């Protein structure tokens, strides 16, 4: 009976969020991948005859100060933002799993030292730290990715370390040691596979965050070079245009950004909610 309810509960948790999130994300990703190709957008060309046109059938999102179609530009920008976000999420997760896993598995003073380092990193606002890193290697994709990844692995590291600390006290680790397994073998056979679901979850939660971070950096003029469309660049360029009454240059790129982050975090929260009952039943065991 309880099992039955649990199954029903699990199947139904957040289904509308799941559907909406999946559909929105699919549309956005497909748009980001295919629209810039189909539209043959040349970002270096400026069309003086079509500067700041209001949304119309020909230009559904209107055009920007350079006369370029905003629908195409926004999705080209989204493509760059998503690429940066995925790279950041993957790199910070790998770093976090490695550092958090080792820290928890080794324990003792190396662990304490590493955790104080993490505290120190966290005590500085991430955006500030990111700005310092970007400022050192200005204006390329690698610098932006590095600045976000190097400030965000700490969250994953903490989660992984906590999980490893609880795992390594379990009897099956004792059994492995007795069976002659090395520290390294225990780490990669038992501890890392156990934290993979948690780490994957935090990677997905990092995605929308990284999109915003990249946008913020580009908006401040520290991110990608101006000719590369990213949502942040487009928004930064369009600040002046708003004053002339061209609301669409801010509204539509922002909408794309907001829809992306809401879709990803919606999906992530459904995933988390569905993980929770499984973890509960593990505890009951």
């Amino acid at each position: 009976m309880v099992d039955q309810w649990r199954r029903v509960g699990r199947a139904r948790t957040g289904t509308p969020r799941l559907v909406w999130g999946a559909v929105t994300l699919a549309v956005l990703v497909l748009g980001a991948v295919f629209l810039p190709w189909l539209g043959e957008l040349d970002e270096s060309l400026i069309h003086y005859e079509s500067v700041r046109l209001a949304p119309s059938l020909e230009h559904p999102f209107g055009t920007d100060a350079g006369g370029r179609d905003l629908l195409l530009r926004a999705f080209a920008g989204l493509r760059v933002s998503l690429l940066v976000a995925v790279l950041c999420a993957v790199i910070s997760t790998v770093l976090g799993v490695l550092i958090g896993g080792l820290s928890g598995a080794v324990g003792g003073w190396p662990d304490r030292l590493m955790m104080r380092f993490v505290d120190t990193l966290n005590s500085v606002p991430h955006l500030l730290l990111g700005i310092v890193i970007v400022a050192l290697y200005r204006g390329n994709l690698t610098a932006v990715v590095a600045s976000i990844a190097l400030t965000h692995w700490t969250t994953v590291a903490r989660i992984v370390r906590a999980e490893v600390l609880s795992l390594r006290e379990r009897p099956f680790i004792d059994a492995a040691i007795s069976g002659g397994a090395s520290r390294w073998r225990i780490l990669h056979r038992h501890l890392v596979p156990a934290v993979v679901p948690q780490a994957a979850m935090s990677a997905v939660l990092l995605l929308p965050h990284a999109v915003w971070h990249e946008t913020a950096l580009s908006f401040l003029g520290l991110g990608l070079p101006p000719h590369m469309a990213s949502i942040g660049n487009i928004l930064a360029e369009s600040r002046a245009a708003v004053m002339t009454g061209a609301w669409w240059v801010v509204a539509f790129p922002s909408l794309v950004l907001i829809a992306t982050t809401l879709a990803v975090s919606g999906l992530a929260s459904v995933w988390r909610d569905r993980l929770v009952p499984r973890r509960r039943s593990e505890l009951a065991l």
Partner: protein
Amino acid sequence: MLSGTGLVAGYRRGVTVLSNVDIKVDRGAVLGLAGPSGCGKSTLAKVLTLLHEPWAGEVTLDDVVVRRFRHAAPRAQRTAIGVVFQQPRLSVDPRFTLREIVVEPLAANGFPAEVGDLAERVGLTEDLLGRRPHEVSDGQLQRACLARALALKPRYLVCDEMTAMLDASTTAALVGVVQEEVHTAGVGVLAISHDEELLSVWADDVQRWV
């Protein structure tokens, strides 16, 4: 001979669990250890299997004094002493199949990861070997744990309440497997249990803690 002399051990500073314990496990014999729960039997098991470093006293393995414990203990010393814990469910990685559980010590020591006759000796079928822990009973899981402990042909075996969670027929089967090891391979066994009746038929000699 696996022995401990003057063992003092505990987990938290100031709280002694074992105080001045002497124990001797001979090869080819079964030493029973009985006592109420909480008296330190499991701690003694962890010390003798080199999984917990004692605060004082000495563990001697075949005339060699053990200086280091857990990972720091030489692999040959660690693997010379097999161990079976009380709760099979907690002592296996839930992600492994029973086959992976049994061959893990072999793989960890660079031997071919083959179950061989281990499964047959403890009574695990091919079907059971392919399942994961949540798909088998406690008794079936404990059979896998015993097979794992025997995989590296240890000279000593510490059974810490090995049969406490099991029914009578599984208990008899597992004790039978251990007895065969004692008689054919001369394994020295420390059988820890609160079940004196079991120890009276299983062990050659029983130590009682109060």
